[in-house]
């Protein structure tokens, strides 16, 4: 409201056929009025600059970005929002199509995309593929890869007559629910705009906070004068470094190095200096400009190679020469391995600084309940438990006094895998003001907060025998870490540890250095530390294959990992159908007819990858404890506490199953997969399951959505809790029937005797009887990774996992040899995810990974000027692929069974990214004859290389 300084006027807005008289001021956008005043929060704020399309509404039937419309200008128009698309309690056929075709993941872009699609089919009910792509090209989606959105719109008319399409299943002989491509359990809420994300919550008497960021890359705060800001009407609280605890936080316990607000030093443009809490966001923003900070500028350094040099500016006293982490791993004998090789090739590669760019900005809301004894924190996070842990640590209160709520999350990809300043500042400020405090990042702040992918400078050397068999692999990698540690220690280890999981490598040496620079901290992004080394390694493998005249597919088959193998770095591989993925992509893509045989400008390439199904060890080792009672934690090769826990609770009438687990649904589909596992194990229909994952007061600890862990770890906990229920029911029923509980089975909503068909009882009847006689029917389950994972060397814990996934991808592309522009035509991908719980969800993850991976290979790069300012902290200039850029994708699943996984399942989320980068680089090399070894592979780099080759 800008505090009495701005006059309101009453405008009459016609929204979804209803008239609203709203007091607005002239500067307010339609988006803000819809959300903040009419509380129609289905319309989302993603970028606020007219690029992402999440705020799309229809004005007189035409799709427009409501963030670029002044509310005052909308009088007299017919406004349609997502809330107005369904009518009479019935979803629009398009919405049904989105649900059934798996076109929804995190759901944050969904309302805007649906609006664009509605506008399209209203004027053109039978659009062509090209017309659909054109109509939806203003809606950025970071999850789906657009494949299923296109399918949904193509098939929308079918859903005029049907509600659901029969979902094809993977292995119905064995299972009823597992293996079925069931629609997401949260799809209807997301497609209708009902699903609430953190920023969609409003509380009475709520305040809003904004952060003052450092404008300089490196300096000492000499003085902060907040008096003027405090006097601005509407400002309730101004916080600076002196007002926050002297406790550092971060991600890796060994390297906590951040304060909630800078105590003295600032180390990058964007570092948090102060925070203002005010009656509204605008007032808070205005007050930031009234805070006077005197800095003593320090010299800064932006390039890791410079930062390591003697005399370079030092970011932290404890990290000498700015070296944050050093890894030196040596397995086998690298010199011997290289000597044994018939052929050795060494190449240097450079990665890029990629930002996850979820469409939902980070947001937090905090308040205190129980007379100020309990903190309630709403957070847009992938890791509610770690946020709870970290807030407990920094506030020095018991973990049990914090109730963390994770509403729907609009994508994370690693950007929301740590505790944010928003989590901590809202917690502190709501305590001090006694009022709910909400904070939401702008798109620019998201870029400044960072935690994106480390840019890696890589040197790889591979030695092979004449037949292509690997004898040795050596790598040296410098990771540009930015100003703080974040996940970076682990990133540096991952950059090396995953390389030996894919191929048999007898001798391996990896040296890694994570270097600090005056830029936003880098963290964990999809594939954590491994996509760039994998890009380098796979590219080099293809180069070597060409050098030796071996087919690139063949050289991979000759070296590919086998099941039940201990890798040279002591990782235990169980299920492994890597070879099958290679063979399948070769066949399906027509590789043998195409590789090396396509005309100039057309190319085909292959890339492969593998990843963990959940980290073998938690990020912090010890028991849950507060800062002040922290004792030294010694590392033991076992999980101290269960990483995933589930409670299954049956409703008193027996008809509903409430599944409680804190597993973080961030769009990847975990709630659906876990519900399917629950239904399968219990022998009931999927629609009976209601999963509750949001509230730590309700659902037991799960470590969250990172390291591709949820299906395997959460799934095992859910299966165990479900079995616990069955045991209780079977015990009861077997007593009644005077048989053994082993003779019973639960299937199709019934419990029956396996060999006597006459003995059968409805599932709910049995459950009701249990409740009547013995009280609540509750089952519990938990999962701890196997003990003893990993070797005994320093850093051996990173890379350990109960299981590893594998995948291969073939890319076909077309390159304009005159401009260097690449058009991705087709991807053929096969993934070994064990037995899929939900094949459609698996394909959705793969398709999303292909497009995200392709974007980071071809166009994504956070760029800086010479003063450490980000040049492209917006979606205009940081380019995410649109539906028009996305290739056609075929995603296949190979037969596989992982004994450690629930129903044989393992990961797909992150691993699917790994093959993509090199597959594209290889296809471009095949099309042009030039290898680009520096990401992103821009048209300019290709053209330059082509010109150099010519001359």
């Amino acid at each position, binding site marked *: 409201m800008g505090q009495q300084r701005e006059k309101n006027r009453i405008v009459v807005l016609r929204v979804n056929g209803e008239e609203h008289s709203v007091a607005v001021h002239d500067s307010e956008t339609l988006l803000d009025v819809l959300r903040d005043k009419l509380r129609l929060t289905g319309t989302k704020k993603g970028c606020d600059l007219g690029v992402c399309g999440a705020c799309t509404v229809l004005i007189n039937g035409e799709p427009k970005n409501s963030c*670029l419309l*002044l509310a005052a*200008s909308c009088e007299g128009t017919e406004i349609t929002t997502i809330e107005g698309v369904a009518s009479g309690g019935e979803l629009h056929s398009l919405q049904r199509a989105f649900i059934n075709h798996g076109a929804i993941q995190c759901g944050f872009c969904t309302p805007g995309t649906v609006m664009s699609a509605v506008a399209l089919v209203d004027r053109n009910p039978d659009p062509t593929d090209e017309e659909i792509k*054109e109509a939806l*090209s*203003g809606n950025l989606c970071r999850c789906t890869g657009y494949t299923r959105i296109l399918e949904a719109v193509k098939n929308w008319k079918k859903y005029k007559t049907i509600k659901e399409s029969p979902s094809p299943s993977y292995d119905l002989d064995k299972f009823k629910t597992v293996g079925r491509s069931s629609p997401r359990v949260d799809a209807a809420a997301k497609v209708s705009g009902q699903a609430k994300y953190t920023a969609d919550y409003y509380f009475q008497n709520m305040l809003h906070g904004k952060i003052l960021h450092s404008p300089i890359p490196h300096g000492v705060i000499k003085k902060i004068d907040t008096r003027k800001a405090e006097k601005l009407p509407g400002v309730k609280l101004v916080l600076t470094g002196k007002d926050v605890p002297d406790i550092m936080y971060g991600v890796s316990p060994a390297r906590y190095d951040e304060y909630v607000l800078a105590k003295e030093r600032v180390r990058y443009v964007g570092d948090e200096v102060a925070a203002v809490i005010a009656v509204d966001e*605008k007032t808070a923003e205005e007050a930031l400009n009234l805070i006077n900070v005197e800095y003593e500028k320090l010299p800064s350094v932006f390039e890791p190679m410079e930062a390591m040099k003697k005399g370079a500016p030092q970011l932290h006293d404890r990290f000498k020469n700015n070296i944050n982490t050093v890894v030196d791993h040596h397995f086998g004998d690298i010199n011997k391995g290289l000597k044994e090789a018939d052929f050795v090739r060494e190449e240097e590669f450079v990665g890029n600084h990629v930002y996850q760019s979820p469409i939902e900005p980070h947001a937090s809301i905090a308040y205190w309940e129980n007379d100020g004894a309990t903190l309630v924190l709403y957070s847009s996070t992938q890791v509610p438990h770690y946020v709870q842990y970290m807030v407990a640590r920094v506030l020095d209160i018991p973990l049990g006094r914090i109730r963390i709520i994770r509403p729907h999350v609009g994508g994370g990809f690693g950007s929301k895998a740590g505790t944010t300043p928003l989590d901590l500042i809202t917690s502190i400020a709501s305590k001090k003001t006694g009022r709910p405090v909400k904070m939401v990042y*702008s798109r620019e702040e998201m870029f400044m907060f960072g935690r994106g992918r480390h840019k890696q400078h890589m040197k790889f050397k591979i030695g092979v025998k004449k037949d292509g068999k690997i004898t040795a692999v050596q790598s040296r990698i410098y990771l540009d870490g930015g100003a703080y540690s974040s996940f970076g220690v682990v990133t540096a280890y991952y950059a090396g540890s995953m390389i030996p999981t894919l191929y048999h490598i007898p001798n391996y040496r990896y040296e890694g250095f994570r270097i600090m620079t005056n830029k936003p901290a880098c963290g964990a992004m999809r594939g954590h530390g491994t996509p760039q080394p994998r890009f380098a390694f796979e590219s080099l493998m293809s180069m070597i294959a060409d050098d030796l005249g071996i087919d690139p597919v063949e050289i991979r088959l000759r070296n590919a990992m086998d099941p039940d193998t201990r890798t040279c770095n002591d990782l235990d591989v169980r299920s492994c159908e890597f070879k099958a993925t290679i063979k399948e992509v070769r066949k399906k893509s027509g590789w043998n007819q195409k590789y090396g045989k396509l005309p100039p400008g057309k190319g085909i390439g292959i890339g492969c990858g593998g990843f963990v199904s959940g980290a073998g060890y938690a990020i912090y080792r010890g028991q849950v404890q507060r800062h002040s009672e922290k004792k030294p934690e010694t590392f033991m090769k076992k999980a101290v506490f269960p990483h995933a826990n589930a409670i299954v609770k049956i409703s008193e009438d027996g008809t509903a199953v409430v599944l409680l687990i804190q597993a973080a649904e961030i769009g990847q589909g975990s709630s659906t997969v876990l519900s399917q596992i629950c239904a399968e194990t219990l022998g009931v229909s999927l629609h009976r399951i209601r999963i509750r994952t949001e509230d730590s007061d309700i659902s037991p600890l799960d470590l969250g959505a990172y390291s591709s862990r949820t299906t395997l770890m959460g799934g095992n906990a859910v299966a165990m809790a479900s079995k616990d229920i069955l045991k209780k029911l079977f015990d009861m029923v077997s007593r009644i029937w005077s048989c053994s509980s082993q003779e019973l089975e639960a299937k199709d909503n019934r419990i029956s005797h396996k060999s006597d068909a006459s003995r059968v009882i409805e599932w709910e009847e049995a459950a009701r009887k249990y409740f009547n006689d013995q009280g609540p029917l509750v089952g519990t389950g938990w999962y701890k990774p196997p003990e003893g994972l990993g070797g005994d060397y320093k850093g051996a814990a990173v890379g350990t996992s109960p299981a590893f996934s594998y995948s291969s991808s073939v890319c076909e592309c077309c390159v304009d040899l005159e401009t260097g522009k690449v058009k991705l035509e087709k991807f053929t991908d096969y993934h070994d995810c064990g037995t899929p719980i939900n094949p459609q969800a698996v394909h959705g993850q793969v398709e999303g990974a292909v497009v995200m991976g392709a974007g980071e290979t071809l*166009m994504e790069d956070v760029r800086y000027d010479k003063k450490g300012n980000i040049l492209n902290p917006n979606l205009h200039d940081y380019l995410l692929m649109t539906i028009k850029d996305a290739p056609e994708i075929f995603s296949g699943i190979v037969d596989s069974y992982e004994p450690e996984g629930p129903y044989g399942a393992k990961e797909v989320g992150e691993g699917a990214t790994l093959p993509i980068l090199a597959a594209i680089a290889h296809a471009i090399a095949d099309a042009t004859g030039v290898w680009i070894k520096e990401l992103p592979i821009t048209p300019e780099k290709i053209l330059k290389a082509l010109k150099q080759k010519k001359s």
Partner: protein
Amino acid sequence: MILSGMRFHSPRTAEEAVQLLSDLKGARVLAGGTDLLVDLKQGLTDVKDVISLQDIEGLKGITKERNRIRIGATSTPQEILSSSLIRQYFPALTEAAQSMASIQIRTLATIAGNITSAVPSADFPPSLIAADAAVELLCTESSREVPLSGFFTGPRETVCRTKELLVSVFVPLPSSNTGISYQKCTLREANSLAVASVASRLTLKNGKTERAAIVLGAVAPTPVLASKASAHLQGKAPSSEVFEEAAAMAKEEGKPISDIRGSAWYRKELIHVLTRRSLSEAFERAQGKSRTKK
């Protein structure tokens, strides 16, 4: 940044609008808002009064007026790409409109905004200049017509005075042996500014080029006519060799900068390629071989 402190005015006529422009110091015209609001939100500019054009009927519409087409100032790219009149006479303009941003922006943005914002990479100006378009500027005292080729003076700078309002764009109807083609290169397929763009126009007479214009976008502070390259074509029979020569000359006439979208070197390379391609297509169109791609 959250917008604040603005006053919103919505005059009903162009005359009222220019009166407001004259009365309110520092007032800015709000056409589609896709540039102005983005700039305001990024803190790149500041404004007290915005004068919305949306309620002015007289600024709307695309009509044929004798030997030229009038495009009303607030015509949106979506209206332009849907206009059969434009498609018939200026397929290059249809394609320029199609290539712009996304549908959510194309329904908001206006041709006047695209021109007066004077962003070097704007999509409409190159083809319009090649087509000899002019703009009509109105102020309280008078109105004047300015050829678009003389309109731009620098990045985000034009001859349009602060109290003037662009009310119409006039494009003369081309002779049947004229062809115009607009080619651009972007880093992604939608919602992306041109790294470089070229509009080429050829008017043929007796198998020779009577009139040629090659207009370059995004490679100089303003859209620029590659005059040497254009002159090179004049009086010559069109051929791939001549086009290649002109393209090589155009490449040297661009004065690109290096920025986040591409280096000066790359932009020059693009001018070369895009000029050649646009000349070929313009030639086809001049011969009546191809009208629009879609």
